[in-house]
């Protein structure tokens, strides 16, 4: 489903930062991959490259047989198939929850307003906040906002979901409700890439764990292997710190 081979990405803001160095990753359909690593290790950059929010300097990304780097690729079409959830939610503050979940369906999928609202209502039930449909994002708690953001991404019926530290901006008591929704998705067979420090979540639903440091993938392994017998010293040290 996702095929990343040998990508490089360098940022030139004030200092030259090599964010990604020769990163390769393959994700199967229905697989749940959790990417972890210390801050600044390039995990978020990798995720943002997958839907071309960042352009890669070198290498190749293939999403569902479509070459992302090909200039003939309509990036908007690819993005419509990839849902993304951000650390800071990024809900549209001038729209109600229902409109947040409907707008892209109407404008990108060209569904009727009625149909979009139907789907949006169903998804809000799925993430557990149907009663907030007519509230504005500012009236919701962080956990509720993030669940709306997940519903908004799901409304496009994507083939892949990307989660960029979805629980990092949340108060501890709200992390659980967001992880619950993500676990449900994982069990339903959604292809997922999650940048997350929630090791409990990783242990429960991840098929594989990717450990990154300083722009490189240090180790990729099944969840059991990474948790029980990590091969690399740096992985061991990192896990020891956060577990």
């Amino acid at each position: 489903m996702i095929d990343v081979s040998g990508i490089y990405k360098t940022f030139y803001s004030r200092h030259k930062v090599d964010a990604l160095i020769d990163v390769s990753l393959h994700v199967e359909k229905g697989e749940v991959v959790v990417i972890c690593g210390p801050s600044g290790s390039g995990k978020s950059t990798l995720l943002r490259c997958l839907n071309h929010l960042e352009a890669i300097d070198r290498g190749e990304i293939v999403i569902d047989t479509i070459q992302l780097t090909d200039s003939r690729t309509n990036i908007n079409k690819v993005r419509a198939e990839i849902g993304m959830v951000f650390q800071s939610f990024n809900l549209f503050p001038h729209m109600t929850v229902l409109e947040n979940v409907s707008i892209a369906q109407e404008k990108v999928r060209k569904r009727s307003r009625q149909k979009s609202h139907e789907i949006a209502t169903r998804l809000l039930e799925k993430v557990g906040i149907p009663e907030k449909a007519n509230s504005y994002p500012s009236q919701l708690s962080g956990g509720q906002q993030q669940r709306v953001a997940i519903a908004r991404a799901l409304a496009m019926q994507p083939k892949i979901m990307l989660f960029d530290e979805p629980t990092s901006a949340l108060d501890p008591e709200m992390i659980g409700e967001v992880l619950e929704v993500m676990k449900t998705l994982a069990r339903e067979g959604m292809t997922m890439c999650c940048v997350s420090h929630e090791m409990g979540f990783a242990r429960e639903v991840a098929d594989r764990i990717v450990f990154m440091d300083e722009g490189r993938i240090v180790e990729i392994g099944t969840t059991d292997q990474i948790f029980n017998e990590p091969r690399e010293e740096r992985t061991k040290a990192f896990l020891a710190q956060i577990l």
Partner: protein
Amino acid sequence: MRREQLDALKDLFHNERFRHSLSWIALFLILFGLIAGTVHTTNKVDYIWRWEQIPRYILFKEIIEVTVEEDAIVTELEKDGADTGIVAINSSDEEQYYLVPTKMLSVGVGDGIERGQVLAEGKVWRLGLLLTGLILTLEISALSIILGVIIGLITGLARLSSSPAPKWLAIGYIELIRGTPLLVQIYIFYFFIGQVFRLSNFMAGVLALSFFSGAYIAEIIRAGIQSIHRGQMEAARSLGMNYPQAMLYIILPQAFKRILPPLAGQFISLIKDSSLVGVIALVELTRAGREIGTSTFNYFEVFFTVAALYLILTFSLSMIVQYLERRFAASD
């Protein structure tokens, strides 16, 4: 004074309500002083106030009496605002022309009219020079605001473009407009651009004001767009929206809400700046005031009235914007 009395006085001064009352009294004294000062100064310069002259420059009653000069036959009626022109031909094929208020019109095409016949008689209300000036100011301002916002939106978006052509054209235009006086721009639009494109002085004035305010509005819109968090654009794009969709549905509505106060300031400036187009023979409010002043020498009353009329326009605009701000605050 005894100690207790002093303390009681101190307490009184520390009382918030007492101090507020004092402040109100001070305010009224200052206002009274200003008015008294104005009256005193005008007395000193021997100015004779004739406020009773002013109303007829707003609305006045015209006495109408149109009498036929020669026997003729009406051949044509031409509408001209609230009036109708009557064209008639006499026996020696000479054309005659009478202008009457339409509501007093009593003849039709083909009717014969005879010498001495009264075509129209009575009184009609007419708009005075100040009111027609106010209406012209309103027309010029409204059109310039609409055009200015369109120009500003296009320029603001071009200014943010990563492609060099639109970006540098926008920067060049903004710097050119902001670096030259509006008065000079009005002359250029009237004498040069107006000549080349055969613009009326009304169009030249409106275009000059539109392009002038467009440059400022562009900067306001650019700042507004840039003030919206990057994550909003990313979220919109990650849902598959293209750039124009993301701008139209996500970024601009939020930016618009935020730039409403500076935008309102710009619109108010524009209404006031419209007083400059008087130099290209547009009798807007200020020019109307000057013309009345030169013929009556009642400069004091006329320009106080002109100022008050501008204030009515700008204050109404402020009120409308405040109403909009309250309405948009629903999602905060």
